[in-house]
């Protein structure tokens, strides 16, 4: 292998795939990045067997070849390289990196040991608009659980059904639901739980100027293709709970709130929790047209009063303030609608002008 390229190309390639490098050291070759020179392109690949990323960058290839380089050192080196033309040369298992008069060399792993990323060619294909999908991820992913003991909750359910695209996430304490209308002429059908880690990476790698994203899938895996990036991920096995059942169909109280004012109030009321070790429980009480948000701790007390528009009954309810703030941060609409049915039933929050998003938070039963 002999290649000429810029520092930028190397950096793009390395940064794109770095997150897929395995952090476990069971299989040493997985702690490396595969670098392949082929067809006037440098191809970078990394995988932890849960997720794999491939990325192509332009380069001048004098001689094709392939190697696997230890990811940590290689990425640190690339970051520190000067902005200069760079030459890569592979001899036996050693990669020489030449710049200016200087050179360094790095011993690689055997590329034959590196697992192949399947292309899922021939599987069902579907094209999604990037801006919609990115937003869907942003508005749901935070509701995923980080608890490894119950894997189905560590990812988002992605559903394609007729002209509906749905993304749903829940950690059993709250649930976020986003639906979008798409064109689905071939009536493609898909349902699978995508690990939050995968969606995070996609969100990070998707550029706003990209228009479309192609997905391909089978029973166990899903592949996303956009720009020069291919990302393959395993799907989480298991039955996602029936979200339709848990979304309340009616309510006893409706509050119409200014999103930012509500967020500010909740944020202020949350300040009094001593530290991040404990959940921050705030009490909401609605009495005619007044909402009061209260919190008290050793540090002091706060009572935030908001004048609101209300339909239905008065109510007293307590929430973990994080569960409210998380959602208020991702709602752009000026006003939100909060629906409740007594102290112990889920509270539902929706943007007033957007029927396609819904969030549900379970209250805290205070003693």
């Amino acid at each position, binding site marked *: 292998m002999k290649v000429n390229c810029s520092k930028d190309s190397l950096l793009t390639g390395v940064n794109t795939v770095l997150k897929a490098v395995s952090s476990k050291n069971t299989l040493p070759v997985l702690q490396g990045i595969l670098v392949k020179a082929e067809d006037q392109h440098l191809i970078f690949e990394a995988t932890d067997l849960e997720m794999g990323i491939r990325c192509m960058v332009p380069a001048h290839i004098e001689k094709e070849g392939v190697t696997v380089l230890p990811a940590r050192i290689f990425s640190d080196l690339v970051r520190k390289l000067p902005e200069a033309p760079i030459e890569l040369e592979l001899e036996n298992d050693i990669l020489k990196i030449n710049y200016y008069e200087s050179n360094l060399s790095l011993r690689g792993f055997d590329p034959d040991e590196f697992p192949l990323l399947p292309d899922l060619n021939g599987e069902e294909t579907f094209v999604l608009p990037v801006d919609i999908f990115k937003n869907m991820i942003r508005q749901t992913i935070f509701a995923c659980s980080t608890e490894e003991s119950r894997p189905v909750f560590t990812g988002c359910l992605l559903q394609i059904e007729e002209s509906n695209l749905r993304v749903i996430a*829940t950690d059993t304490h709250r649930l976020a639901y986003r639906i979008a209308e798409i064109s689905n002429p071939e009536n493609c059908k898909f349902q699978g739980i995508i690990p939050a880690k995968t969606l995070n990476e996609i969100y990070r790698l998707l550029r706003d100027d990209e228009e479309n994203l192609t997905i391909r899938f089978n029973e166990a895996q899903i592949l996303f293709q956009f720009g020069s990036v291919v990302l393959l991920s395993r799907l989480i096995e298991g039955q996602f709970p029936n979200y339709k059942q848990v979304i309340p169909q009616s309510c006893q109280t409706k509050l119409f709130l200014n999103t930012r004012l509500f967020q500010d109030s909740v944020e202020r009321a949350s300040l009094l929790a001593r530290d991040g070790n404990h959940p921050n429980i705030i009490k909401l009480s609605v009495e005619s047209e007044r909402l009061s948000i209260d919190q008290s701790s050793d540090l002091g007390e706060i009572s935030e009063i908001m004048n609101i528009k209300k339909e239905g009954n008065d109510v007293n309810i307590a929430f973990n303030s994080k569960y409210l703030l998380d959602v208020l941060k991702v709602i752009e609409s000026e006003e939100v609608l909060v629906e409740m049915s007594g102290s112990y039933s889920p509270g539902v929050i929706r943007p007033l002008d957007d029927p396609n998003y819904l969030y549900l938070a379970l209250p805290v039963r205070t003693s």
Partner: protein
Amino acid sequence: MTRNIQILDIQAANQIAAGEVVERPVSVVKELIENSLDAGATKIEVVVEGSGVELIRVQDNGVGIPAQELPISLQRHATSKIRSIEDLNTLGTLGFRGEALPSIASVSKMEILTRPQKEISGAHLIFEGGKEIEFLETGCPPGTTVIVKDLFYNTPARRKFLKSKNREFGLISECIGKLALARPDVAFTLRHPKTIVLQTPGRGQLIDSVGAVLGHNTARRLLEISYQKGDWELTGFISPPDLVRSSRQSEYLIVNGRIIRSSVISRGILEGYHTLIPNKYYPITVLKLKMPPNQYDVNVHPTKMEIRFHEEKKLSEFIAEGIRQVLMASHPITPFSKESPHRESLAREANFTSKKINSQKKMNYSKEVGFSWGLAGIKAQEPQDINRTLEPNDSLITQDSIELPILQKSNLVHTPQESKLDSKPIENGSHLLVFEGNPVQITPETNTVQIPKDTNLANRIQENSSPEADNLNPQEYVSIIQEEDIEYNPLLRLCPIGQIFQTYILATDEENLVVIDQHAAHERINYEKLFQEHQKKPGDSQMLLIPTPIELSPGEEEALLEYILVLNEMGFILEHFGTRTYLLRGIPAYSGPYAGETLLREFLDHVLTNQIPPRMEELLEEWIYLLACKDSIKAKDNLNPLEMEQLIFQLSKTNNPYTCPHGRPTMIQLSKKEFERRFYRS
């Protein structure tokens, strides 16, 4: 106790736990002694030959058995102690089954010589393998003597099953030791066969028995406990936190005069010592509990060793509280030396002396005003204690001194090669202290402790030591003038001098040099703060959108149902779903990093192993340790004088300033006396 012997009705007999009464020689000894105790004996002499198989003789001065009742006493289910099963609720005797004598008689060659106090002659009954051989009138002292020879001669299988002679005899002496602890009012003697192995004076002082059984040196270090709540009364002796054993062996429990085992009480004990002693170590405890007999059930185990209490949780809390109080009052600071106590060191030279305290910071010792610390407190504030006088200072630092009446503590033992202390004067007039030699290491078994000990206890040891006990020089115990009720916290007298190795704070109260491990100290402060915060947390419940199904084993289910209300108060919301399956609909809102299901399962495990439900803070304890450690200053953190003061002050406010949450010491100390000794000034 002196009712006639009659045969129990069959119904009652069956209700009483049957089982193997005579398993090994020690069982014979135990049964016979219990009979003697039931007969009101005040003197019991036991002679054992070999492992006890050869000969066991128990002689008492009790009420004796009337000649005409003697043959009946050897019938199964013959007892004079209860009449019906209801009597168990008011049981005042150790025996109640009427099984011991016939069982022993059936596997040995047994003789009984007995004479009721008022009779002029006694009866002599000889048995072999359960059959009467001879029954005659004889002359003998009042009381009863039972002789058991050739134990298991007709059951060779049993004999093979026995352990070595030493081991069997060991069990016997251990058993008599326990009975002696239970009954300090009875004089016990154990001979084997000529030497006296164990002897108690029977003067009614528990400490005598403790000394005889555990050794007088150990006994002297124990702390006396006396705690009462309602109709429960706890008395006895417990070890200071630095006197620990690696097994539960030295845990003695006596409930209403009966030696028993109880996981409930064991748990209470450990809870009392919690964080004061390292994990997997056990204190020495001799606890006597008095409670109405209808609050527990003795009839749960054939050897009557285990009893079941009705209010388990309350009891274990009661025990823990009692122990905690004594331990905290004892101010357990680990001293410098790791050698075991010398005789001299045990002397409590408790003189009422005046002590100078450097009021460099103008500390205020009056109780009402409290101690001023921190930035504001440093500014001059006139001491208000009536006991102190201001006098011109003669120390290097030109500040006022306060004189306070305090107890002078005893001097310490030392091992010269262990830590050499060099004192090099430096310009500014203060002293830089350098430790040389081996790092001081404290191991739980070997170190000594210095505690302002209950002098009454010391006096009692002195007065009542049995003849075999080492003689104590009465002068070693100087009576203490009762301290006025100035309640003082000895840590508040500590003034930091400086920091060494960026890890330890040196401080002095002018009487001792105290070395404080800054990390351990801070860990203790943070741990207690976090723990209390958690105790205050309400049992709020985060409800779940999708309930977690939980499958339980039959035992777990039983535990869950028994404590469903406790679980509810903690914030678990559970719903029965199917056979041994429950839905977790809500979990404690303040559950740290743990999943609800994990906590629930840990709760049930805890109940199954300890018979008592844990509290929420206990479930979260590992996490609290971690947080406390994370929040604490580390070794190698530089501290300025103000910070050191603050640390000592906060430490003094903790419930247990002397150990870190893992039971390691937060401070060690070296007394002025010790310095004088090492510099040959005395």
